């Protein structure tokens, strides 16, 4: 029979262990809060400084040497055009590669190399992509510091994100869908185009949005290709020139993008330019937040609605 003293000792041990449990819970919540709080502080700090600068003029003015006249017109137009090139090149390539790896690829050394290579590409720092673009696109292909160069660079950067998202979306489709399609005599491509792609499109879209949100904020590779920071004009509107040659004038135009404009303003010593940087940063964070939020919402809806 257990003695009272032993019982008390055991109870003491249990209480101590439970106290540590509680301490760790609090520590966990605090750590989580620190992360989330940093984000909130960053957002609020930027809003307090930047929002007063946000006006119609700020969005419709070119950068200027006078801080109070400067705006982000050339920056947001440039961002949209660069993103257009990025999306048009990265999405088809990434989805095609993802489909190949999931639906076609045989199990052999070639597939292994491609898979290891993709996970390795995802780990390469973005500035190295900038160096690649500088050597390859700017000088070797002679694209110069153009929208095309920037768009393609960012496309290479987000390619692994889109490939991985495509593969995950396809993997979520049950095997019975494939088997049903093949049983009806469909070829691999008919199965892919009529079943796999439509069913995985929402998942792929989520990945594309996350990739684009990353591309929008990327600064280092674009600086590395030597993009100008003071652009007080707009490129010719896309597809507006004389066809066929004039339609693509815009992709060879010099440009600036939002993060470059923000970097430019941040590196000036005058306080007034810092406010501009805050305003541009606020717009930038808002854009990436909106895109990430949309992706999270889409994924949530997807998980809720699809029951195979």
């Amino acid at each position, binding site marked *: 029979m257990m003695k009272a003293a032993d019982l008390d000792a055991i109870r003491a041990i249990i209480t101590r262990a439970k106290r540590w449990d509680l301490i760790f819970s609090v520590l966990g919540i605090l750590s989580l809060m620190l992360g989330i709080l940093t*984000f909130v502080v*960053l957002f609020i700090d930027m809003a307090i400084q930047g929002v007063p600068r946000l006006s119609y003029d700020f969005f419709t003015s070119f950068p200027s040497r006078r801080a109070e006249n400067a705006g982000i017109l050339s920056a947001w137009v440039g961002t949209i055009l660069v993103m257009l090139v990025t999306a048009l090149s990265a999405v088809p390539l990434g989805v095609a590669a993802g489909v190949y790896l999931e639906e076609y690829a045989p199990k052999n050394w070639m597939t292994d190399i491609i898979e290891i290579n993709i996970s390795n590409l995802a780990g390469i720092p973005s*500035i*190295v992509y900038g160096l690649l673009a500088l050597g390859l696109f700017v000088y070797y292909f002679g694209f110069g510091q153009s929208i095309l160069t920037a768009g393609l660079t960012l496309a290479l950067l987000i390619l692994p994100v889109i490939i991985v998202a495509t593969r995950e979306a396809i993997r979520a489709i049950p095997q019975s869908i494939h088997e049903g399609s093949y049983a009806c005599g469909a070829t691999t491509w008919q199965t892919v185009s009529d079943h796999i792609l439509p069913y995985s499109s929402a998942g792929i879209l989520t990945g594309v949005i996350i990739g684009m949100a990353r591309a*929008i904020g990327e600064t280092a590779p674009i600086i590395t290709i*030597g993009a100008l920071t003071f652009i007080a004009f707009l490129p010719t509107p896309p597809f507006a020139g004389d066809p066929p040659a004039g339609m693509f004038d815009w992709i060879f135009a010099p440009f600036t993008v939002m993060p470059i404009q923000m970097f430019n303003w941040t590196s000036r010593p005058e306080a007034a330019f810092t406010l501009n940087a805050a305003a541009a940063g606020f717009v930038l964070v808002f854009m990436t937040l909106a895109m990430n939020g949309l992706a999270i919402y889409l994924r949530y809806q997807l998980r809720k609605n699809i029951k195979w």
Partner: protein
Amino acid sequence: MSASASAPPLSASIGAGISDRLSKKASRHVKERIIEAMLFAAAAFSVFVTVAIVYVLVKESWVFFQTVPLSDFLFDTQWTPLFDDAHYGIMVLLSGTLTSSAVALVVAIPLGTIIALYLSEFAGFKVREIAKPFLELLGGVPTIVYGYFALTFLTPILQKIYPDLPGFNLLSAGLVMGIMIIPYVASLSEDAMRAVPMALREGSYAMGATRLQTALWVVTPAATSGIASAYILGISRAVGETMILAVAAGMQPNLTFNPAEPGATITSYIVQVALGDLPHGSIGYQTIFAAGLTLLLMTLAFNLLGYWLRKRYREVY
């Protein structure tokens, strides 16, 4: 097809139709092959990207190392490639990279691990559903914005605590970089912890262990390889991070391991050169490729280490 005997004309037409449709269509086969080849080309393109990266970096660095001996590059203690008295000691830039990364990891590894343990072992379903998207957003903020935050918000606060701190310093950049890396470390570690089978936890609880004891002595050891590869991904992110350092750490090359000083890193040096107007083919232009190659080799080593750890120490359940 026994009925066809009574109506020969009909059966003949059906038979002809069937055999016609069932015959192997060359066009369909060719189309399939072409599509497969195109999809393969898209997948193989990623290998081409890697080859192109290595080719460009090695080609330009090769020219650089014709002028600058490798021993100077590795052991010189000055980095002044743009001055008349040019020195090319990568150690100077490396010290900045290592110092800022160390500061970032001191923040990211403990916080990331605690968050992962909390989310995987302690938090309820609701907390996790809310916290994870928030952490994802933290990882989605553009790094230039973090740089701005480090320079204009964190540095002034640190200067109040430690008045001698210069306006540009590795400390503030490193701290913010640590916050930026938390989501990567936390989410990968958490994935590894959640992959540990429930039976192990149940066994531990059945022996009378508390949640914390289970988390520390059962779940963590079982998830070690995943947690280690999460740390390595964090290190690789820190080493490759550019804009926070370019904005908040100043860009003066400085051989120091003191985070309270300004300093240049490999990445911020590349940005600094790219901002200027260096002619294509000059030695200054080639230095950024040599620096880039160093960076690539470092991240490659970390990636391989992570890959090896995952393979070597993976517990198979």
